[in-house]
């Protein structure tokens, strides 16, 4: 393992003293006392060793005239700042700007680490160590970036170049967790190659890896999250809040299945009709024919309206059965419920989308984990969202699943219209999914990171981006960003506006905004989303897109290619591609 205090392959003439012997030397050495404000006690000697390397420290201590360079005091070297009076700081949140992100790929960070390593060695060879403190600080900073972005290779390299060992209890836990994954990786390899039927042991290891991933994710150790996923190759687990309660976690596939089953069983509807037909007299034939054709027309469960019609039909039959209503009353009720359902379906005006259908060429599916969102956005159109931990009245909702976890489910395809609360030893509680509400997504990751909405910034913020084919927003989005009466963004059009092809942006109806029939959803702009924000209305169910009936949500999901989770610096920490839809 590489995490030894000093294992650098050096020339024989380069000294390799141990930390302890150095500590003893420093206490005896009068030169050490001149190095203020750092008092070279054994504990902070360790800090210096960790950040600048043993060889440099040895050289430092052997040069009695060395003065502490200001770069040490100003650098971000952890634990080395004098701990005098606590300083009150006013933190001003700076707006995120992707142009200011120094390392957008793991390779660029590795290149920088190698460059710094060369510089350090060169300095030591030449005997000029004035810059090594800041290099030590840089290694620490680069390591933090590697952890945040889950860059395993870069992390390993920086631990090696920085000669880092755990600095405090938290790091001890982090290192131990990392080592545990390595141990499980070795075990797993052994089991796969030597034992013919080791499925039980493999399952135990998988459970351990999931649990490690959970702990690492809660601590922000994304390199360990990635490492565990890499070793385990399993479906990520959906977690509820509060964290750490392992009874509130569920396999993503299982939850996906439960949500998909939140639609009525069409067979149940068919069985009911067959039963009714077997009991019907000639006088009820007309009513039964209507019921049969309505069910047949909606049984495919393509739209939310289909689902509602079938569900209300089954529910009504069950209530009649439980109340032991007679056959005629039951038939009358089923007839009444279905006519209401059909009427409701036609109440919202049909929004027709015309023009040349969009048939994009798609780029190859690549693993963008650890890559900056700006790279992804050069290949795909991205709708991104920031979402806080599900909470109400300032308290987390126990067992509530984060929106980001829901976005990764196959059934949600990046656009979750369900809310889920996991209950210990019970079926998860599902909310939403009823066709109500809307979701607003920023065009591009920058708008999501900088989004300042109250609900999204109360804690537990996570970010995700939904990948669409490049050109999708331009083809189907109604660009309202500068179409408002004030020259700013126009308001969100309602169903009626889309259906009629225009709207007014003011109450006096003087400022008319055209809505061409080639558009399927609105793109507006707010102060935090100058690049635009797309509005997806879950109740916009009556759309006819290139001759196919569907809801706006179904239409958007049809084009979704994948979903990514990214961090506040814009780096992807998880990615999933969905199956292709025809």
């Amino acid at each position: 393992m590489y995490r030894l205090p000093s294992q650098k392959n050096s020339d024989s003439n380069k000294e390799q003293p141990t930390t302890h012997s150095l500590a003893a030397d420093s206490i005896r050495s009068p030169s050490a006392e001149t190095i203020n404000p750092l008092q070279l006690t054994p504990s902070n000697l360790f800090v210096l060793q960790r950040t600048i390397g043993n060889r440099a420290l040895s050289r430092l201590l052997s040069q009695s005239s060395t003065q502490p360079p200001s770069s040490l005091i100003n650098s971000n070297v952890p634990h080395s700042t004098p701990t005098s009076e606590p300083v009150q700081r006013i933190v001003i949140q700076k707006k995120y700007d992707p142009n200011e992100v120094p390392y957008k790929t793991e390779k660029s960070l590795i290149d920088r680490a190698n460059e710094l390593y060369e510089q350090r060695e060169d300095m030591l060879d030449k005997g000029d160590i004035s810059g090594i403190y800041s290099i030590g600080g840089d290694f620490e900073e680069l390591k933090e970036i590697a952890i945040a972005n889950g860059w395993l290779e870069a992390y390993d390299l920086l631990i090696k170049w920085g000669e880092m060992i755990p600095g405090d209890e938290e790091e001890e836990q982090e290192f131990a967790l990392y080592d545990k994954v390595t141990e499980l990786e070795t075990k797993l390899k052994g089991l796969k190659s030597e034992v013919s039927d080791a499925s039980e042991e493999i399952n135990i290891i998988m459970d351990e890896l999931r649990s490690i991933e959970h702990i690492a994710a809660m601590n922000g150790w994304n390199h360990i999250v990635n490492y565990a996923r890499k070793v385990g190759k399993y479906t990520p687990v959906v977690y509820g809040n509060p964290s750490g309660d392992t009874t509130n976690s569920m396999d993503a596939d299982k939850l996906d299945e439960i949500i998909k089953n939140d639609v009525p069983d069409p067979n149940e509807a068919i069985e009911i009709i067959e039963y009714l037909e077997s009991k019907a007299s000639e006088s009820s034939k007309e009513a039964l024919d209507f019921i049969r054709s309505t069910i047949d027309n909606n049984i495919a469960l393509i739209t939310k309206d289909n689902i509602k019609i079938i569900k209300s039909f089954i529910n009504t039959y069950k209530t009649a059965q439980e109340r032991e209503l007679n056959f005629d009353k039951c038939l009358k009720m089923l007839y009444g419920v279905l006519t209401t359902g059909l009427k409701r379906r036609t109440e919202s005006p049909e929004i027709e989308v015309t023009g040349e259908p969009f048939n994009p060429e798609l780029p190859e599916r690549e693993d963008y984990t650890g890559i900056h969102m700006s790279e992804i956005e050069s290949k795909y159109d991205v709708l991104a969202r920031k979402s806080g931990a599900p909470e109400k009245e300032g308290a987390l909702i126990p067992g509530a699943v984060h929106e980001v976890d829901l976005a990764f489910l196959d059934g949600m395809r990046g656009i979750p219209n369900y809310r889920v609360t996991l209950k210990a030893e019970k079926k998860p509680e599902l909310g939403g999914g009823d066709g109500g509400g809307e979701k607003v997504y920023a065009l591009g990751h920058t708008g999501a990171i900088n989004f300042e909405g109250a609900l999204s910034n109360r804690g537990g913020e996570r970010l995700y981006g939904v990948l669409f084919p490049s050109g999708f927003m331009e083809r189907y989005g109604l660009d309202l960003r500068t179409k408002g009466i004030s020259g700013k963004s126009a308001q969100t059009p309602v169903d009626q506006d889309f259906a009629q092809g225009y709207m007014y942006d003011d109450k006096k109806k003087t400022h008319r905004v055209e809505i061409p029939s080639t558009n399927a959803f609105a793109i507006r702009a707010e102060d935090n989303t100058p690049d635009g924000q797309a509005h997806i209305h879950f109740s916009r169910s009556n759309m006819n897109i290139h001759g196919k009936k569907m809801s706006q949500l179904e239409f958007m999901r049809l084009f979704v290619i994948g979903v990514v989770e990214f961090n506040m610096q814009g780096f992807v920490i998880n990615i999933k591609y969905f199956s292709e839809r025809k």
Partner: protein
Amino acid sequence: MNNKLIDSLLHPKESYERTQALREAVIELQNNSFSSPQENVINFLRSYKTEDQVQAALIGILLHRLDRSKPPQIGVFARLFPALQMSWEPQIQKMAIEIFSGHSPKEVFYELTDIVALKEGSEEDRYYAYNVISTVDFDSVPETM
């Protein structure tokens, strides 16, 4: 009710703004039960149709509070029904359970089915009743609270 709140309720820029205004109205009416909102607000609450369950539940609570002298009406139950399972909105869920107290959700579900199937009650009540019977699984409806 102040004018800003009324404006956000009746002419919101976004659906989100209307939900916030409804939340505020619930708090306002709880704190000062004697000050009824203006007629246009009451009319809006009675006539507004939405598929958003949170908005529907808030409207149900408001309508019930405006008519406290009477037992909860079927229209209030229709708007509030989904809130019984709304664990992500604990305050709304609590208020819904309070209003349902002494009533059997299963009996209410029967009644909601009747008003849809037999075209009884007001058009708005039927709208919300259909929202319930077309989205809630009858098998999951409890006999008692």
